[in-house]
């Protein structure tokens, strides 16, 4: 139920009584409600649940998480534990 899928914003429309847009899910385009992400821009990635964008994805945070995973070996080799994985801290 809480399944949500990332997609790219390709159109923003203010014609309807609520903020709507079109999202490209890897070739499949669907209309999605953008009311909860009023700051969204064309080209942004949002995560969509039941035709509703829950939030905008942060590329910077995603890259930092992936980088932390890549560096796990070095951390392992140094035999020192740290909490780099928690990119939020």
């Amino acid at each position, binding site marked *: *139920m*809480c399944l949500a899928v990332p997609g790219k914003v390709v159109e923003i429309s203010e014609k309807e009584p*609520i903020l709507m847009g079109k999202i490209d899910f890897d070739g499949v385009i669907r209309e999605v409600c953008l009311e*909860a992400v009023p700051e969204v821009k064309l080209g942004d990635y949002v995560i969509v649940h*039941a035709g509703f964008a*829950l*939030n905008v994805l942060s590329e910077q*945070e995603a890259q930092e998480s992936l980088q932390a995973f890549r560096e*796990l070996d070095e951390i392992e080799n140094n035999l020192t534990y740290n909490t780099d994985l928690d990119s939020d801290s």
Partner: protein
Amino acid sequence: MRYLEEFRDADLVQKVLSRIHNTVKNPWVIMEVCGGQTHSIMQNGIDQLLPDNIELVHGPGCPVCVTPLELIDKALAIASLPGVIFCSFGDMLRVPGSSTDLLKLRSQGAQVKIVYSPLDAVRIAQQNPDKQVVFFAIGFETTAPVNASSVLYANKLGLQNFSLLVSQVTVPAAMHAILGSTDNRVQGFLAAGHVCTIMGYHQYHAISKRYGVPIVVTGFEPLDLLQGILMAVVQLENGSSQVENAYSRLVNEAGNIPAQKMLNDVFEPCDRNWRGIGMIPASGLCLRKKFARFNAEEHFELADITTKESEICIAGHILKGIKKPTQCPAFGSLCTPQHPLGATMVSSEGTCAAYFRYASVKQE
């Protein structure tokens, strides 16, 4: 960056897994709250890759599974009425009520439609002004804003023929109920990433402090789940009980404020019955009085409903993490996704369905 395959990278998964194996010293029981996470864990075989002394138990985060039988019977009663188009997410159609289900009703001529979004149900109401269109608004906090937006949208359009049958529940109340139970086994939580996308995670600090459990906000891809498990295990081994975020590309402490505003405009907290678990105080959301005209329970006069649960089904124990599906005598024989006895076997998020579908589970 497409935010999918990057978080399924086999080499990185291996790195995080080996870190988990090197970290864990003691046996731990960790619950993933969300049914979507349960399915990802089973589908990707993550439970098979973990050290034997990490036990994952599966939480009640499956809205289809916890929607009370009484509301399903109400849905069936409303869907049977002439002049009604009853709209629902597909998962609900096969969930057994006391005597039938929505799919059988549809085969008998009732107008039951599967929709992808409650906003699609609003459009159906717009196109069918001579029909009453009812949407079965089930869900956790992830779904509450879109359900709320359907009411706000219908209100702006001035629709008189659209209503919700609401079964909205909330995660923190369920975590309190599980941790406060005398038979609780859970020592750490993976909090549901998409619920936290909306609500943030500030409300979990009090839970983690009160019960002394680590809570890690976790996503749905293999790397997300393993990162969440690793962070929980590190805390458990260190005797720590903090709230941490393993899903920072989407979740922040405060959550999505515009979404919360929509939710709060339309809904207010109320007590809710959870199927298989029972009544949990302040564990749900109901329509505010100013939106009462969108409340299907007030709109339709229904006869008294007497519910009847299966006597064999152990879904309640499964939803609380006390038992596994393989401990149920009906699992895979009397109870299958085609002929389910309980909702946990139906939903794409139900634990029993996950075990049935991805069969290579560790035997108890």
